[in-house]
Structure formats: structure tokens, C-alpha cells
């Protein structure tokens, strides 16, 4: 392992100046290695990479957003938002945190696009409206669409955070009043796109993705929605702490009943865990404190495309889940539908759904009801066994 403490320019040296011990730093690197599924010894590689590299530039764009992903980022702990902003990256534009305003703020963004063309990372939060000639979202008098095209097509990579930026999210829910799109659809020529869906993105998945890039200079392997396998490779159901109750046929029947108090399975009250792919059960939220199912509420499927239309009504249970007590055949999950989804599609129409990115990528699935992710790697191999896809996008 190369140690570069003497150069004075690396992160390690800076951390030392602020009293972060070598042990603490290596602890952070180990946690990162574990989260992104790297083999033993990788933490040393991460440490070496973080210590020596100059800070890459990142700009964070907000469009039709609720700032929930920004808030989530503020909850990050490994590393913290302060460490990312001050030490790991140069965050040259982020409306919610930056000191500059108005013209001076926009000048910072323009300078990045001009002077660091092809070298910066763009994070996008919120969907991009295409209706009303772009008037549904303007910043500095420019439309979100224009800004997204200028900034994203000149970036080395784009990281879409949250389900609005990845798949259109809530603004794109039927009947999509503003013609909202996710980044993939709004800006077709992005070189490398990483999608971190969920509402909001789990901060630890965002920081792990950034650290993966800082460590290796490339992006993690992804599923067909461009989501990193280390975070979206398995269903909630497969890793759920309540799975034993599903297998045993023990269900919550009514809010606050004995089964609810004892942590039984939430399937009958609407849990979408079987058709939702994210690592919530493993890393949980807010530094591992809890997660929605842990506090007694069903999963609402927030990491999946069109979950506002396809997973609602939220409290209607999935139909056709095989085997109360049998392990589900994961490849057939895509055939399941939520009770009531048919009615919702009938009411809202399928037309607008045809525009979505996942449809383009899902040949042979004209109805748009296929939830199936890319088949998982066989056996217990972790994500490292998957071919790298991110860099090819």
C-alpha cells in the first residue's frame, strides 16, 4: 500500500491535521469496502486512492425536486456530508448549500462546464419537465431541460439520485401533468449514467458509489436500470428480517394487533418487498438505526420505476405471490402485479408509460408490467462477479 502522508496534499494528511487518527480513517475505509462488496484487503486500496488523489469536481443540480435527496445526503456518516464537501470532492455547485446566490451561483456552474468539460461528475436530483416549453422549472431564467442538457452531456459521469431523477418519480406519476422525465430520457447522450433510485436515495449508497469511483476511477457494476448491484442486486423480501414469518405464514392482519406487535410479515397489509430491489434490510437508514419495515410499515417499493402507479394502492397486497411458505421463484416476480394496479392503469392510461427508459430497455414487455431485474449471479458470488456495465453506458 502506498502511503503518501508526506506529500501534504492528500486526504490522509488533511485528516491528520484535523485530528482524525489513522485507525479511524482505516475504519472508514473498511466500512466502505464492506458496503460496496469488495474483498478483504480492499480497504487498503481505498485508503491509498483517497489519500493521494486531488479532489474531483462535483456539481449537484436540483430540478423538480423536494430536496429530500439533499437532506438524505446530509445524513451520510461514512463519510459524512462535511467530509465529502470539504475533503473528498470539490462541490462547486449545489443550490441548497452554496454560499453564492443568483448570478454568482450560476457563474460557478458555467465555469465548471466550461473549464472542466468531460472531467466533472454531475449529480441530478428531481425530474425534468418538458411541458410548457420548459416553464415548469426554470433556474436563472433557463429551463431545467436546457441546464440538464448543457451540464450532463459535458460531464464525465452523471449520478441520478432519487426516483424522480432516475425514473421521473412523483411528478411523472399519472397523468404526468408537466411532462416530467428522468435524466436518462431527458438527456439521451450521457456517457456514463449511474441511477440511484429510492425515495429518497439512501445516503450510504450515494457515498459508497462516489467512493467506489474515487477508489477505482470507474463506476460500479449495474443492473439494467443502471443501478449498482451492490445496492440494488437483491430484493427487500430476500433479505427481510421478517422473512421467516412470511415463510411460516404469520402475517399482520390489522394495525396494532398481536402479530404487528410481534413483528410478523407485512405482506397482507400491502408490503411491496417481494418486487422491490434495494439494500434497505442490510444497511437500513440513518446510520443503521431503523428502516420502514422495522418500524411496522410495509415497503412501498420506492426504488422501482413508476412505483407511484405500479405499487399503488399501497395497502393492497400483491397478488399471485407464489407459495405462502415456499421460497419465491425470483425470476417470476415480474409476473406479479399489485391488486388494483390494473384498475389504476385503466384509469390513467398506458400511453404516457410508453415513454419511460425502462420500456426502451425491456424488449418483449410491451405492457410495462415486468418488474424483473437482471438475473442475479448464481451461488453466493458477490457483485464483483458481475461484468462491469457502468463504464460502458
Amino acid at each position: 500500500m502506498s502511503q503518501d502522508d508526506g506529500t501534504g496534499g492528500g486526504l490522509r494528511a488533511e485528516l491528520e491535521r484535523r485530528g482524525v487518527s489513522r485507525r479511524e480513517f482505516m475504519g472508514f475505509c473498511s466500512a466502505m469496502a464492506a458496503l460496496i462488496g469488495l474483498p478483504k484487503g480492499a480497504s487498503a486500496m481505498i485508503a491509498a486512492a483517497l489519500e493521494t488523489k486531488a479532489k474531483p469536481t462535483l456539481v449537484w443540480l436540483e430540478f423538480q425536486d423536494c430536496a429530500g435527496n439533499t437532506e438524505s445526503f446530509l445524513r451520510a456518516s461514512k463519510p459524512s456530508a462535511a467530509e465529502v464537501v470539504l475533503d473528498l470532492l470539490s462541490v462547486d455547485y449545489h443550490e441548497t448549500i452554496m454560499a453564492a446566490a443568483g448570478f454568482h451561483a450560476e457563474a460557478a456552474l458555467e465555469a465548471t462546464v466550461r473549464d472542466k468539460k468531460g472531467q466533472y461528475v454531475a449529480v441530478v436530483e428531481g425530474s425534468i419537465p418538458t411541458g410548457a416549453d420548459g416553464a415548469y422549472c426554470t433556474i436563472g431564467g433557463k429551463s431545467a431541460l436546457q441546464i440538464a442538457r448543457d451540464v450532463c452531456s459535458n460531464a464525465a459521469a452523471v449520478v441520478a439520485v432519487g426516483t424522480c431523477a432516475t425514473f421521473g418519480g412523483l411528478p411523472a406519476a399519472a397523468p404526468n401533468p408537466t411532462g416530467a422525465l428522468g435524466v436518462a430520457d431527458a438527456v439521451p447522450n450521457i456517457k456514463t449514467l449511474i441511477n440511484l433510485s429510492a425515495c429518497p436515495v439512501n445516503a450510504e449508497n450515494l457515498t459508497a458509489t462516489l467512493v467506489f469511483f474515487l477508489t477505482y476511477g470507474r463506476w460500479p457494476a449495474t443492473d439494467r436500470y443502471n443501478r449498482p448491484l451492490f445496492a440494488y442486486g437483491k430484493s427487500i423480501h430476500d433479505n427481510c428480517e421478517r422473512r421467516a414469518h412470511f415463510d411460516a405464514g404469520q402475517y399482520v392482519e390489522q394495525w396494532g394487533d398481536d402479530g404487528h406487535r410481534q413483528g410478523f410479515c407485512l405482506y397482507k397489509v400491502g408490503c411491496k418487498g417481494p418486487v422491490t430491489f434495494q439494500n434497505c434490510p442490510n444497511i437500513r437508514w440513518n446510520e443503521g438505526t431503523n428502516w420502514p419495515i422495522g418500524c411496522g410499515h410495509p415497503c412501498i417499493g420506492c426504488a422501482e420505476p413508476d412505483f407511484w402507479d405500479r405499487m399503488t394502492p399501497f395497502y393492497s397486497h400483491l397478488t399471485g405471490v407464489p407459495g405462502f411458505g415456499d421460497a419465491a421463484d425470483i425470476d417470476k416476480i415480474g409476473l406479479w402485479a399489485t391488486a388494483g394496479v390494473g384498475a389504476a392503469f385503466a384509469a390513467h392510461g398506458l400511453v404516457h408509460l410508453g415513454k419511460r427508459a425502462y420500456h426502451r430497455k425491456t424488449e418483449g414487455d410491451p405492457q410495462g408490467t415486468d418488474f424483473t431485474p437482471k438475473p442475479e449471479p448464481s451461488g453466493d458470488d458477490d457483485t464483483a462477479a458481475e461484468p462491469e456495465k457502468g463504464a460502458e453506458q
Partner: protein
Amino acid sequence: MSHIVVDPVTRIEGHLRIEAEVDNGQVSNAWSSSTMFRGIEIILQGRDPRDAWAFTQRICGVCTTIHAIASIRAVENAIGAKPPPNARILRNLIIAAQCVQDHVIHFYHLHALDWVDVVSALEADPAATAGLAQQVSDWHNSSADYFTQVKERLGAFVQRGQLGPFANAYWGHPAYRLPPEANLMAVAHYLEALDWQRKFIKIHAILGGKNPHLQSFLVGGMATPVDPNSQAALNIHTIAALKELIAEGLDFVRRVYIPDLLAVASFYKDWAGFGAGVGNYLVYGEYPENEGPSPPLYIPSGVIRGRDLSKIEAFDPEKVTEYVKHSWYEYEGGDGQALHPSKGETKPKYTGPKPPFDRLDTSGKYSWLKSPRYDNLPMEVGPLARMLVAFASGHQRVKELVTSALAQLGVGPEVLFSTLGRVAARGIETQVLAEKMGEWVDELANNMGRGELRIHDSSRWDPKSWPKSATGAGFHEAPRGALGHWVHIEDGKIARYQCVVPSTWNAGPRDAGENPGPYESALLGTPIANPEQPLEILRTVHSFDPCMACGVHVVDVGGREVTCVKVL
């Protein structure tokens, strides 16, 4: 005269544009425009009312609980569901935690840089900074060594030449008035508050599964089971964890936030003379203390007109209306009228310039916000409104803290009607709520101990138990002020949904009578030292804590006549 455009207004939630005219070094006219629209009420049409909270919650991820709370209250009001005591307590805790955490983030991360010159902190003497810190508080992080470390970290960051989010700001602006030591202390606490908020909000993770976008809300109660004899429910472990998080949170508020607030305010007392605004204040009230139809509220409701603290009027929800004359919407009966939210008929109608544009035509429509009015008057909502109503209503703890803060600054209550008053009221409210939260945890623990484990009214869960047609309203005090949701349900589905939101009250454009909204009023007379660097505009606008995503979503296509609006 010069025309200033600040777009984007940064360090807020959402997209806000301010245009202002400056004459003789003062703002002589101002227009507030919100530049983003999503149409969430349209999206709600025809959906299950029990799902609505999750949709409306996503209006905002900063005040991530407020539209969920208002939504479940509106639907409960419509269908007659009655949440049991534990649900009320859990909601009070979630609401108060939101308010406390949000206010601290606002002070340090969104507002502080308007008052604190980060670059000046590099000239601070760490020993003198320690002296200042120890003079204002007994907080443990106050040694010269500690401030040396912070200064070196900041210095190393600046030396590296990549200023990131601190680039291009108004550093060195003559309106910055803190000595370098106060600036360094504030920078240290900016960083500490980043860690603090992350920890304090674990209260939400315990009670709501995650933050942002908690996921334990239910129409009729809460999804978080309560059982002292279970590992999968709120139990004695979680009670202990909540008490510890609240105690640590309160400690920071008392020993860091409030002392910082008073220290900074003491250098900017002239800002008690700017930013007064409309002088009318509206509060719906919050924190029900029992289950009755009109429960006592810990933070009282009321209306103040024309800064008259001697008379607190009762809030009447029938007097809430909205104009669209200067908003990018149209009314069927003409844009001159004002409509009650239950009778809204709004359709988006963008008439502004095609982007990219330099100027808005402010004589016509110029914002995605409507203009809410109460009894035809513009109203300020938020912490200042709440603290004024509570103060004038004789709320004991609020009176004590307001009186003590005024005494420490050596000023009278008249300074409250100002930019500075808004900043101070937010801090006082934070302490009042952080102190109160422990009592609600005790109440929850007592219920648990005597076997009161109910969390949900299941009698109204099944839509078959609802009337064919039902109408309801839900009221809430969000961190930024009074929030109301109105819902109409037909055959178990949402027929109409309308929200009237704090930032719509405060940031809305002129009404049909050309009366400006609170931001627009508050900016009049603001001194501008340098029109190229309108720092002073940011001070007053930020003092309201803008949350624009909340403000814009006002679309209702239901169009049904509704005559009966019930009040929670």
C-alpha cells in the same frame, strides 16, 4: 434606480426568484416568483385517500413530515377516524423533532452565511475565540486548541484552492459585521451542527423507519407498534434511546444555538429595523394534548392584525382564500375573485416569457405560487407568528424565553416585528419544543406501562365504512408556518385535493388588489450597499426560511361544489 434579479436564491428549499428595484440605496419595490411546478394535486385525483399522505409528503423532503401529517388529518376528518392517544403522542414527537432539527439546520446551514463571513474567520485568534466562546456558553468544545484545529482545517481547505460551495460568495461585503473570532466560532458550530442534525434526527428513524420521508403514517393512527414486551415494537429500549437523543438535542440548543443566536444578534441589532413585512400573523396551532374534537394545543392558534398584540382573534378557516391574478393559473369566473380552498377550480396557465429569459413581466402573472389571504389580508406565518400569538396569549414558557432574550439584547418587544425578530423567534421556538418533547416520551411510557397499546382506529380503515361522499380539512403548524390540506372523497377515491402552504402564504405574489405578499412587503426599505452583491435581500428572504417546493402544487381540477368544511 437599478433592477436586481436574484435567481436562484440559494440556501433554500426549491426554486425562488426575487426581482427588486433599488432606489437611493434602498429596495423600493420587490417581486417574489416561484419558478417550479409539479401538479401533485392533479396526480392525486382518483387515488386511494389512504395513500395520499405518501404522495403529499413528497411535496417537500426538507420539512419531510408536514404534508403527511396534514394529509392524514384531512382524511381522518373526512371519514371520521379517531386516532388513539399513542398515535397523537407519536405524531407530536415527530412534528416537534422535525421543527427542532429543521430550525437548527436553517440557522447554521441556510441562514448563517448571510451574517457570518467565513473568510474573515481565517484572521481569528483561536485563544480570543476561546475566550468569546467561554463567555457566552459553557459548551465543552471551547478551548483554544479546538479553535486552532478548526481554523487550520478551514485554512487547509482554502489553501487547496478549491473553494467548492464557498466560492463566489459576498465575502468581505461591508454588511458583514462580526469580528473574526465570532466568525470562527460560528464556522466551528456550522460543522458541529452538521453532525448534530444527523444524530438528532434518529428520533425520526426510531419512530418513522427513516428520514427523510418517514414511513410510519397511517390514516387513523400510526404504524409503529407499542409493546413493552416485544422486540419488534417501541419498548423500553426505544424509550431510553428517545430520551437520550432528546436530552442531547436540547443540550446543543441551549448551550450552542441560543448563545450563538444572541451573540450574532448583538452585532446586528439594526436588523430589528428592517424586514417587518405585512404585520399580520396567522397561526393554526399545534400539538394536541388530548383526543377531543377541539383539543387544547401546546402552541396556540390565533390571528394578529396590524401588529396589535393586545387582541388575539380566533382562527376561522372559512376566511382562507386564494387569488391567482398574478399567478400562472386561471379561474373560470375571472381572475379577480378569491376562492376558498374547498371551492378551488385552478388550472395552470403559463403566460410568462419563454425560457431562457432575463426579466419577468411583473405587471401580469409572474409566479407559480397563488396568493393566499385571510379575511382578504396577507398574513405572515411561521415561527415569528407562532411566538407572537403564544406570547400575547400568555404561554408561560414562551413569555419567559422571549422576555429573557429581549433583556439580554437590551431591546423591547417592538423589535420582534423584523428580520431579526424572525431569526430570534425561530430559536426560541426550538428551545420551547425541545424542552417539551421529553414530557411526551413520558406520556408514551406511562401508557405502555398501564397496557394502553392502541396505535390505530381500525373501525374506519375499510373504505366500505366511509360515507359515499366525504369532505375534510387537516391543519398543521409546519416549521415554516400554517399548513392546511382540504380533501373531498367520492366513492372511496380522491375527487379533489388542495393544499395551502406556509411558503405560499409568505412568498406569494400580489393579490387582485395589488397588495404585495409578505416577502415582497418585507423587502421594502432594505438597504443595499452594493446592487451587484445584494446580501441584504438574502438576509430578509432567508429569515422566512423559504421552502418553495412546498409552495407550488396548488392545482385542483375537481371542480365540485363543496359547501361543508369541517374543522379538525
